[in-house]
């Protein structure tokens, strides 16, 4: 714009401020993502930001147990790599907790009774003894190493397999897809009627839709739960079913859907609709052949909204679907994990990322439509 070209100091300040804000806004999510890729054990003892750079760790680990010893000449030798093949550079090591950094990498150190220990900087170690190694556990080795950043998918493997998150993922999809598609058709017809058909009471209906837009969802829960239970008893079925939650989400999503779509459809050129009418099209024809194809952007944007809303919903799912294993959705599952595994950040961060990955993909893929929909609803 006009001002930016002249006042360069101000524009640098703007760059800096925006950069700062962007970092502020992305750091929480980034932290979660990085944490979910770290080793469980490390998560609990160091901040996630330390995982990004090479860092010096003082670690204690055990060598291979005596059962793996081999006899070389008159010595019994245990060989292995204390870094387990990972890259890293060991600077110092030791054999007792009193002096964990006593020796430089590469030195051959005698422990006692002729036993020796040698740890190379790449982690290879040799334990040698004139007599047979005894005991069940491997010898403890203390070492100080420069470790490069290390990431693993093990948290994800764990949550997707054992902890039922995989099942919840499918449950969430089961809830979300129909609950996104069903309201669109119903809303589109209603929106067209409210935008272009003339009938008594239209203004009142539009006012009702706008009014219902702000009704707190919480109000509906008790009366609906009562109705659901009654219907369930009547037909002898459970009141917590997928069909039930699809219809509930349809009902809750309709005001926004009708409002957004009506705003869009009312903005279509009047002459196109009149022209179709002169061409002999009935309202049903006009809707099918003219309105639906032309409203695609608005339909897409509502679909994204509804998808995000249903996927991210916790309340409706908890009330109308419950938390039994074949019904529990991701958000509810995550909440339960937070309660039961408050300290297990490995599980928690990976689970959280699993729940937000789909919405994030939808968001980044279809952001254009989302923004257009937002604007249709607000800027007039």
């Amino acid at each position, binding site marked *: 714009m006009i001002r930016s070209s002249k006042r360069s100091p101000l524009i640098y300040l703007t760059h800096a401020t925006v950069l700062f804000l962007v970092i502020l806004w992305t750091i929480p999510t980034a932290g979660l993502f990085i944490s979910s890729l770290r080793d469980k054990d490390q998560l609990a003892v160091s901040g996630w930001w330390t995982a990004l750079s090479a860092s010096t760790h003082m670690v204690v680990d055990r060598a291979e147990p005596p059962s793996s010893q081999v006899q070389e000449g008159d010595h019994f030798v245990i060989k292995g790599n204390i870094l387990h093949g990972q890259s890293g550079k060991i600077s110092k090591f030791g054999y007792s907790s009193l002096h964990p950094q006593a020796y430089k990498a590469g030195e051959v150190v005698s422990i006692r009774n002729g036993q020796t220990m040698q740890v190379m900087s790449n982690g290879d170690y040799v334990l040698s003894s004139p007599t047979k190694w005894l005991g069940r556990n491997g010898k403890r080795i203390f070492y100080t190493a420069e470790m490069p950043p290390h990431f693993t998918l093990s948290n994800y493997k764990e949550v997707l397999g054992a902890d039922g998150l995989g099942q919840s993922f499918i449950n969430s999809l089961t809830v979300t897809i129909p609950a996104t598609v069903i309201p669109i058709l119903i809303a589109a017809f209603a929106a067209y009627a409210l935008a272009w058909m003339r009938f008594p009471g239209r203004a009142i209906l539009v006012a009702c839709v706008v009014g219902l837009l702000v009704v707190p969802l919480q109000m509906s829960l008790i009366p609906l739960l009562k109705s659901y239970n009654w219907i369930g008893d009547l037909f002898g079925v459970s009141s917590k079913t997928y069909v039930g939650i699809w219809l509930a989400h349809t009902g809750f999503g309709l005001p926004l859907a009708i409002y957004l779509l009506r705003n869009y459809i009312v903005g279509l*050129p009047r*002459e196109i609709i*009149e*022209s*179709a009418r*002169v*061409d*002999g*099209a009935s309202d049903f024809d006009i809707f099918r052949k003219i309105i639906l194809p032309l409203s695609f952007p608005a339909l897409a944007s509502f679909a994204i909204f509804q998808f995000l809303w249903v996927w991210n919903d916790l309340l409706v799912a908890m009330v109308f679907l419950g938390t039994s294993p074949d019904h529990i959705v991701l958000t509810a599952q995550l909440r339960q994990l937070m309660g039961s595994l408050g300290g297990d950040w490995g599980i928690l961060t990976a689970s959280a990322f699993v729940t937000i990955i789909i919405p994030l993909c939808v968001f980044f893929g279809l952001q254009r439509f989302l923004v257009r929909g937002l604007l249709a609803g607000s800027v007039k």
Partner: protein
Amino acid sequence: MADVKLTHVKKIYSNKVEVLHDINLDIKQGEFIVFVGPSGCGKSTLLRMISGLEDISGGTLEIDGKVMNDVPPALRGIAMVFQSYALYPHMSVYDNMAFSLQIAKASKADIDKQVRKAAEMLQLTPYLDRLPKALSGGQRQRVAIGRAIVRSPQVFLFDEPLSNLDAALRVATRMEIANLKDNMPDSTMIYVTHDQVEAMTLADRIVLLSGGNIEQVGSPLELYEHPANVFVARFIGSPSMNIVPCRIEKTGESTRVSLSSSEVVEVPIVTEASEQTKEAFFGIRPEDLRVVDSKEQGFISGEVAFVESLGEATLLHLQVKGCKEMVIAKQPGTLISQRGDLIHLAAAPDKMHLFNDKEQSYARLG
């Protein structure tokens, strides 16, 4: 094909505003009728009532002798070309033209024949597969017309079809519409515009509307030469007719009036004796005024206030004593004249107009 007849037609909106009062109009089959008038005069509303897009609040509309008040648009035997073309943006040119026939469940072969015939006529054949957005403004307009032709309607309705085109294209498309009319001499066409040049060039008869009333119906030249009232006189022709207030001095076979500039003119128009001494309006078109050398040769004089040189003609704006409005004289070619010059003007008596105190033309009253 069909006549269109409007009898006592009225339009009252739901908020009780009456926008058309008692419209009576007889349109013969094969006529090209132009509704013209200033914006807000009700010309588009009248057209939309004929099309069926607006309800008729009172009176009757007949097409081909049948009352059409409650008949849906599609069954009135009309086709309409809209100002914004109203092409369906998601359909190809072909589908746009085929739409009405598909709705009417015509056979595929029949649709194809009709569409190709219309496309041929409008030179649209190479564009049949394109979407409207890939066409130029003129081409879009032709598609809109093609869409109308395909329905082979009894009556064509045009709602300001040229106002979205630029000046050069407008002339070309105007000629195309004139050609279209020549090719379909039996179709009735009703055309709405606010542009009097379009009205003059296209119309068999012009319907001039103002404030919800018909001011005059007639051929373009009739409106030009014998305007029924001051409004018509001013609306048709550019620059518009000079109107000078006057008083009737003598009635009879010809009428003598004294202009507000105190000159006296003899006008060859019959007036009744009862009109004696009444206030009236004298009218003369700028192009009918002629610059003369002396006051005696002319009938009105004025000081040049400013001069517009258009090249092919010169417009002199004159301040005439006793007149509030400037008198404009249009002279062919270039005329050297300066502000402040005193100019004398003459005119042929048969070009003069005279309107009574209610602004109605004496010539037509007589």
